[in-house]
């Protein structure tokens, strides 16, 4: 006999676990991410809607959720159990779009607050008028829950008519799953035509997995075939390992079919008696509550590691993406260094200018050409790195996240940023040259701009600009030339590093914005083990 003794430590551990689950995010579109997201939502809903409130208040009325496929006659069944029309039934599918909760007037306060199902807005409008307006979720996208009271129900029992689990309206399906997870007793309704359908069987298997208190109702069975269908269904249940599940058969009756009135009390009497017995007999009640709650607690053992695994694979994917960016930029950085060493900047226009200097070309023009050439080299490196990153990311499913794909960084703005950086480098170089020249005697002091041009050429021109170094030495002395070259070289390295670093960070910014960290995995597992210890 399972019993439910709840210590405050357990509740604390549970709410800590709930917070961890709520904090878990799966933003990268990996293969398992949608599943993980759904699992997380489902688990969160089950914790919020069912487990925590139930453990906190074991005396609250039992919630019985009636679920099943579209057209299985759920609403008719609920109406018949209550004895009056509380939920709309009809021939048009799907019929029930707003879940309806029915309870005894004394129990109303349990459900009017946000104790259970906190995500659903309550409405008390009489159903006759509200049927049309409440077909859709409320304007703010929230679902609504209609609460009805009926004194024909025994106190301590609440029936919830859920939407169909295989609805064409995807929202309804999600809602139905959420509602079923909030139940103390799951009532699965199926029909003579449907009992072999795949979808309800998935639900039954889930119920088995969670070890929930489960009841199945075989509805709308034509009376000629009652025994045969019932036997078939029983065989299927036994085969699925659900042979001990209470099974009720409701015949198809002419007055009830297709949106008519209520089934006669005799048709649903066994089910009703079973429910009433479980509500009113303390032993049965405790057993039912404990079984479902323990089932959910047990299921955490499998579900939490699953979530943790998904979180870990998210982090691994993020790491792969980051390392692809790092590799690309590192490679390009090495390449740029190599090119600078070999004097690739002093080529094309800059080389022509240098050949014409100083006869047919001013120092300013030479500096312009060099600056532009350096900018081109950096831009080339950055775009090449981006291309590498794109290549590597194309093979990664995780890179399809919308945050990562809509990059606004057009090459023009990169060009702009690099142009700014390079011009700043030039200005600082000219200042260095002026400093150096100022130290010389007035008579022999050369033009600072030409000194700057010569330094730049000597730095960027590699081997082919050896004569620039000589010219520099002639003008400001060997010592000064060496010092100036050193300073300018350090300046160049600094700017180069900064440009590539900035671009790399810009590339990584959206990925960082997704905040995929390694912590959630460990935290989820830790929360689970704390909970296990407290049980």
């Amino acid at each position, binding site marked *: 006999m399972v019993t439910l003794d709840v210590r405050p430590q357990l509740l604390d551990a549970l709410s800590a676990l709930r917070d961890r689950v709520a904090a878990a995010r799966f933003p990268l579109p990996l293969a398992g991410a949608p599943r993980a997201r759904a699992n997380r939502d489902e688990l969160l809903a089950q914790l919020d809607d069912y487990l925590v409130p139930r453990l906190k208040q074991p005396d609250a009325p039992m919630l019985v959720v009636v679920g099943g496929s579209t057209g299985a006659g759920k609403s008719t069944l609920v109406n018949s159990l209550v004895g009056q029309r509380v939920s709309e039934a009809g021939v048009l599918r799907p019929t029930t779009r707003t879940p309806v909760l029915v309870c005894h007037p004394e129990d109303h306060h349990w459900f009017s607050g946000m104790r259970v199902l906190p995500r659903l807005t309550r409405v008390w409008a009489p159903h006759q008028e509200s049927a049309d307006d409440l077909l859709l979720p409320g304007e703010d996208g929230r679902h609504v829950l209609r609460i009805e009271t009926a004194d024909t129900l025994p106190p301590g029992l609440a029936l919830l008519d859920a939407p169909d689990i295989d609805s064409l309206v995807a929202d309804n399906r999600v809602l139905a799953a959420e509602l079923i997870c909030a139940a103390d007793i799951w009532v699965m309704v199926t029909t003579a035509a449907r009992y*072999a359908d795949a979808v309800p069987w998935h639900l039954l298997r889930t119920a088995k997995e969670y070890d929930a208190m489960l009841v199945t109702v075989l509805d709308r069975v034509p009376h000629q075939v009652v025994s045969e269908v019932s036997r078939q269904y029983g065989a299927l249940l036994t085969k699925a390992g659900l042979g001990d599940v209470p099974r009720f058969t409701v015949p198809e009756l002419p007055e009830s*079919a*297709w949106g008519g009135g209520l089934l006669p009390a005799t048709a649903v009497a066994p089910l009703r008696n079973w429910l009433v017995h479980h509500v009113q007999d303390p032993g049965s009640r405790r057993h039912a509550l404990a079984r479902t709650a323990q089932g959910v607690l047990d299921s955490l053992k499998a579900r939490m590691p699953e979530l943790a695994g998904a979180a870990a694979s998210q982090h691994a994917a993020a790491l792969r993406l980051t390392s692809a960016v790092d590799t690309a930029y590192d490679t390009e950085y090495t390449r740029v260094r190599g090119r600078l060493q070999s004097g690739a900047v002093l080529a094309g226009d800059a080389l022509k200018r240098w050949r014409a200097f100083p006869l047919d070309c001013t120092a300013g023009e030479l500096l312009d050409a060099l600056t532009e050439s350096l900018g081109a080299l950096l831009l080339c490196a950055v775009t090449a790195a981006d291309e590498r990153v794109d290549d590597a990311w194309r093979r990664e499913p995780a890179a399809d996240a919308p945050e990562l794909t809509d990059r606004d960084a057009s090459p023009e703005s990169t060009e702009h940023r690099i142009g700014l950086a390079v011009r700043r480098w030039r200005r600082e170089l000219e200042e260095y040259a002026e400093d150096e020249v100022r130290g010389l005697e007035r008579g022999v002091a050369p033009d600072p701009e030409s000194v700057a041009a010569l330094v730049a050429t000597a730095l960027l021109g590699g081997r082919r600009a050896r004569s620039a170094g000589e010219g520099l030495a002639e003008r400001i002395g060997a010592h000064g030339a060496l010092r100036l070259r050193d300073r300018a070289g350090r300046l160049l390295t600094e700017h180069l590093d900064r440009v590539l670093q900035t671009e790399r960070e810009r590339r990584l910014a959206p990925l960082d914005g997704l905040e995929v960290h390694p912590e959630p995995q460990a935290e989820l597992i830790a929360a689970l083990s704390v909970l296990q210890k407290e049980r």
Partner: protein
Amino acid sequence: MTAVTDQDHTDNDHMNNDHMNNDHADHDQTDSGRIDNDRKNSKDSTDSSSGTGENPEAGEQEQTRAQDRVGAEDGGTAEKSAKVPARLPVRNSAKEPREQEAAVHARVSDADGVTAPRTAAGTGPHAPSRREPGSEPGTEPGADTGADAGAEPGTDSDGAWDDGLIARRVSEASAAEQAAVMETRIGGGGGSTLPSTPLTYDAPLRSRLDALRELVGLSRARLDSRTLAEAGRVLDEAAARRRLSGQHTVVAIAGATGSGKSQLFNALAGVNISETGVRRPTTSAPIACSWSDGASTLIDRLGIPGRLRRRPVQSQDAEAQLRGLVLIDLPDHDSAAVQHREQVDRVLALVDAVIWVVDPEKYADAILHERYLRPMAGHAEIMFIVLNQVDRLPGEAAELVLDDLRRLLDEDGVALGEYGEPGATVLALSALTGDGIGELREVLGQFVTERGAAARRIAADVDAAAWRLRPVYATGRRTGLSEEARDEFADCLADAVGATAAGEAAERAWLRNAGRACGTPWLRLWRWQQDRRDPPTGRLPLRAPADEEATARQRVEQAVRTVSERASAGLPMPWAQAVREAAVRGAGGLPEALDQLAARAGLPPGRPPRPGWWPVAVLAQACMTLLQVVGGLWLLGQIVGVLAPNLGVPVLLMVTGIIGGPLVEWSCRLAARGPARRYGQDAERRLREAAAGCGRARVLDPVAAELLRYREVREQYGRVTGVGAAAR
């Protein structure tokens, strides 16, 4: 016994005879009656159309010869065996429709047990079943008499049944196919002696299929085989279906478990051939029921074993109405038995039409709509949606449910065939009570008689495949390399070789030389001194004769990247990748080529050429200097007293010299400006053009070729989607 045939078919005939003979025992009874009629019809047809035939006489002789030979071999059965193959070769010829028609007549009368002349059969009650696809319902009698062996030969070739076109189109590919057709039919037909003419597609569909084949061929190098698999499957299915009977329409009954598929199947067949029951799921393997012979190859294709093939109850009326129908009862698609769903998916891909059976309980199931109806929305024309079990609904509820079903179908994107528009047919019926079965039978009969379902199915398949391929062929954006992008690329390459700088340097060098040449001697003296004082950096000609790597690598790389980016903008991914690869491949040796080119096209080393007027300027400058000297000497002479004092003239001479020298220099500089600019521009242009030419040859041309290939493929794709094809 005459028939139009070709020389090359004789071998085929001969080969086929053996098959036919083997099968004779089974079909003797049916054959004899048919052949009698057949002979009459064939004679009729050939007689009346001998004017339009290609070479009726030759054919006749050929046929006679064949007959003789066979007769000699087979003795007693000679006549029969000769007649049977006589029909076969005709299939390729322009006379096929008539032959076909005649054969149908023969069979009809045979079925009636009346071996009456053809005219009697033609006006018989089964006229609708013989209507050719595409012929108007109103012209039924006309079509019937049109079977009068082409009394108007024009109607044959003009009609949708334009086999003549096929015969003319028999080329290397389709000839092979044709041969395969014969083999399949004879080999797999199991001795079916029905005139199962292969299916033909109308011209737009044929051209779309051809375009799709071409498209797949063109894209194989660019797209991975997984992307093309669906299109390949459609092509295979289209070819496979084409080989099989065009007289039959394969209709599958699909639906959820417990919706009453088997019940409907039995109701249509009129006999209990598919097991029904309350045990779910009931039917676990597809069952076929054929209303006429000759469909065995079709059923073979569905993989339905012989023990699951049935015949409907023998009733003249029903048989006539549904002649050519092959009905398949499928397992459910929604039960927990997964292998059922697999079977349904497999068979649904192969049938010509589908009847979806839904019931009031399950008509809004997500699995039906999301998994089947939505993806198959394009196949609306070959879909029937039947609301079964209406007997379970009270009075007006049936209408409500039907309307709701229509609404759901509309939301799925399934076009509904209301008000005569093409689309899915929605019916309410009860297989249990027989309510509405008659209506379905009627609609189905008409549908089968039209014989257009197979072609429409293939067309819808092509549509779906094309739609799925859309992301890899079309983006809806403008593609191509704009003129600006090309110009910009050329500019970037010119920058990379330094054309602008070279031009400016050349211009300035020219100007400098002009100034030096035409300057006053004093100025030149001063400059010379200045030069001696300055450090010799950069000015001295100790440069390397040719720079290695004179081209800016990074600029070339960037230019190629930019241009390939622009060229591939708006292209679907695989093609953009191909364009990029072409550009990168072309850019492989580009910097080296530009290096060489710059060395060749650049200015020759040394001084720029000296124009003819420089000596004149130099002479003028010398004169001016001479005037200064003469004036100076004269003045000096007066001062010394050697010469008579005369201030005016020498001063004038000196002033002229002093002012004239700079004046000449200045005007020379003015005059030099134009030629200098021309010289510089010339140098720049030469470099620029050389670089642009090199870039075009190595990068732009391959990129353009790749773009052209894409455009070709895009056009082909347009043809597949039917946009570019003739309006249907």
